């Protein structure tokens, strides 16, 4: 059965035929249309930038959490969505970044920006150490290795409590990113900084997968043999990606720690790492917007469901609702919410066009996006 992991599926081949950066990135093919999307992106970013002047600090705190988690999810998208490696340990690396940043600020009294750099560096080193064996494994093995790392991380935090602060973790006595002006509260400033960092991260990732690496990546996803025959050193590319992904995860983790104002072991249980994967898949692992949507879902949905559902067993009912929502997402939109929305938009557009010119009617039928995958009789 190992063949099932190693040998790429036919539909993977088909996917590889698409341009490598299909969802949201990639070299602009149609300048005019690309410009429209670019400006819409700018509008969205501006809207997000207006938010802090409209909503309360409490909401800003949650939005900042979403943005920080989104960076972690985006880093996993780079792995899962763009190089086909499913990691369950991203939460641990996220946590390592948080610890690295907080400890350098607390104990070496670094400025916040330097602490972020330290987090990125530590993330890179950890990524290299894990990546060396990990990139030689596929599917199931990689899943196990990373799940082990995620499971051991909190244990190690307790074990080396002299170093990590144990249960009390590492706290800062003042906000990590205090507002430089009177005009903005700390929460507003923090939100704006985190938002800017999120956008910068996505821009960086988008460039990364849109370029040569992106093409190498789609070859790797399509299958090792194909990639090797195209002259791509798959191990090296995968390792590079693993390291970059770890650096970004650690970066996101550092920001998350800044938002929360502390790091404690309980923030990074195994289930947190798993949640990051869930966010990636449910949001859409091949889309950067999907990373944001996925992060928003896993941050907001549990709180919303548990506050909406009253009664004695509300917490577990909320958990059940959360699980059902996720399950429905996975089944209804296998390419994530972002993929689902995209598909819906295309379908609506085609339907409206079909109404205008009935001759093109045959193409207007809504094709479920999974059809290519469904030919396999089940």
């Amino acid at each position: 059965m190992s063949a099932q992991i190693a040998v790429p599926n036919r539909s993977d081949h088909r996917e590889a035929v698409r341009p490598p950066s299909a969802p949201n990135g990639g070299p602009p093919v149609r300048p005019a249309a690309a410009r429209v999307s670019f400006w819409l992106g700018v509008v969205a970013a501006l809207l997000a930038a207006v938010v802090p002047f409209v909503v309360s600090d409490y909401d800003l705190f949650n939005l900042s959490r979403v943005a920080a988690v989104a960076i972690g999810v985006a880093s996993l998208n780079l792995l899962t969505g763009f190089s086909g490696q499913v990691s369950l340990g991203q939460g641990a690396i996220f946590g390592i970044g948080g610890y690295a940043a907080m400890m350098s600020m607390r104990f070496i009294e670094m400025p916040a920006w330097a602490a972020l750099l330290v987090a990125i560096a530590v993330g890179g080193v950890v990524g290299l150490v894990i990546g060396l064996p990990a990139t030689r494994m596929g599917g199931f093995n990689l899943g196990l290795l990373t799940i082990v790392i995620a499971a051991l991380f909190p244990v190690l935090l307790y074990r080396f409590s002299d170093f990590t602060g144990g249960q009390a973790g590492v706290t800062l006595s003042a906000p990590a990113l205090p507002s430089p002006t009177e005009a903005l509260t700390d929460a507003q400033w923090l939100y704006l900084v985190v938002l800017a960092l999120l956008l910068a991260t996505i821009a960086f990732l988008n460039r990364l997968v849109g370029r040569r690496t992106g093409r190498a990546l789609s070859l790797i996803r399509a299958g090792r043999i194909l990639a090797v025959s195209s002259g791509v050193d798959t191990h090296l590319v995968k390792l590079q990606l693993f390291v970059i992904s770890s650096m970004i995860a650690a970066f996101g983790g550092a920001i998350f720690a800044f938002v929360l104002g502390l790091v404690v072991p309980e923030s990074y249980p195994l289930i947190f790492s798993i949640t990051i994967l869930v966010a990636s898949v449910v949001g859409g692992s091949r889309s950067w917007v999907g990373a944001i949507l996925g992060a928003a879902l896993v941050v907001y949905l549990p709180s919303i469901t548990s506050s909406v559902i009253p009664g004695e067993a509300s917490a577990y009912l909320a958990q059940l609702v959360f699980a059902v929502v996720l399950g429905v997402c996975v089944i209804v939109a296998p390419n994530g919410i972002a993929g689902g929305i995209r598909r819906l938009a295309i379908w609506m557009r085609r339907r409206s066009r079909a109404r205008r010119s009935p001759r093109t009617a045959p193409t207007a039928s809504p094709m479920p996006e999974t059809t290519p995958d469904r030919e396999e009789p089940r």
Partner: protein
Amino acid sequence: MNQQKRIRGRVATIAVAAVAMLALAGCTPRAAAGDSAVADDAPIVIGASWPQSGPLGSVAPGLSGLEAAIAAANEAGGVDGHEITLVTADDAYDPSRLVENERKFVEQDGAIAVVNFGGISIAGREYLGQKNVMGVSMAGNSPLSDVEAFPMQRAFWPDVSWEAQLQGKWLTENKPDAVVGYIGFNNDLTESHLAGLAEQGIVPAQVAAVAPGTADLSAQISQFQAAGVDTVIFNIGAPTGGSTLAYMQQIGWKPTVLLSSTVSDFHTVINLAGPEAVKDAYSFEFFKDPSDPRYADDEVIAQYTADMEASGHDADVSNALALEGYGLGAALIDALSRAESYDSEGLLTAWDSFDSTENPMLRDGITLDASAHGRVVFQYQLSRFDGTSWTDEGDIQDVRDLGIVD
């Protein structure tokens, strides 16, 4: 055309995402943060962020007890005509959700105090300090005694290291040659506990610090036996403590067993281990266990049971954690009733003036007293399990009198 479609799809995605982000914000309009001072007849708001699901979902009954106590107080007319509003939220034992909940309580609900459970309360201290809102945690973790650095944070349970010192003292006096084995979780509770034992000159020969969820300790028990352990200290909750005691019973190994107070109740340990397996175990206790038959006719417990049933929490009545939550609620109401102002400061001052204050959860003869440690319980009753019930051994011991705490 395909490209164009794809790009339009992309546009739509971004637009929808932008809208979604705004919608998700819940859109609480930006306004001046609510003043925590309470108007004459306005309700007093207390927030409770409690694990109701997640790894510590089994402590949820504590919240039921808290709710029952508050509901009973409101039924009796509230505090000086003020109704008490208890706002609750599940934190699933996740620090970031705890902080989120605390922010909501403080910024949106205008809570004057925040109550929560367990070690993750540490995550909220900093924020509560900034906002000058009182926090009370039901936790024995030593870091929560740091009132100097976090002046708004109080803890309801005593520090685990105190009880550890009592155990150490007891061992030195009664079993000076004991070969001690210790079983606890691999976290700071174990560290504090071992530090407390060391303070009294007891260094366990064997320590099994296991990850939560580990239940099969047969290999550790074999190791203990081989090392000649004759006294085992348990500071481990469900399910590990109970199943390990049951295993020891089955293989016929009967060392002296010391159970930590918070893991000595029927729900956590005895029901799982079976009463025979716990027989002759010792524990330094401070709270009552509503499941213990000795309290079947206890008036305070009867009142507690009535209040639990009145607030619809029948299912949790027998759980000691529910009684402890009820006790916490009673302590808050007690403090409020003596508070000069119904805000954080007033509540905190009143909390810090507990003096031989009675509380429904406490063993007879034990009272709440304020202290510089931010903790309120100092007295313990050494108890032995006789196979059906915990029986008192000797007098109530006060860690302050014994020089364990100054």
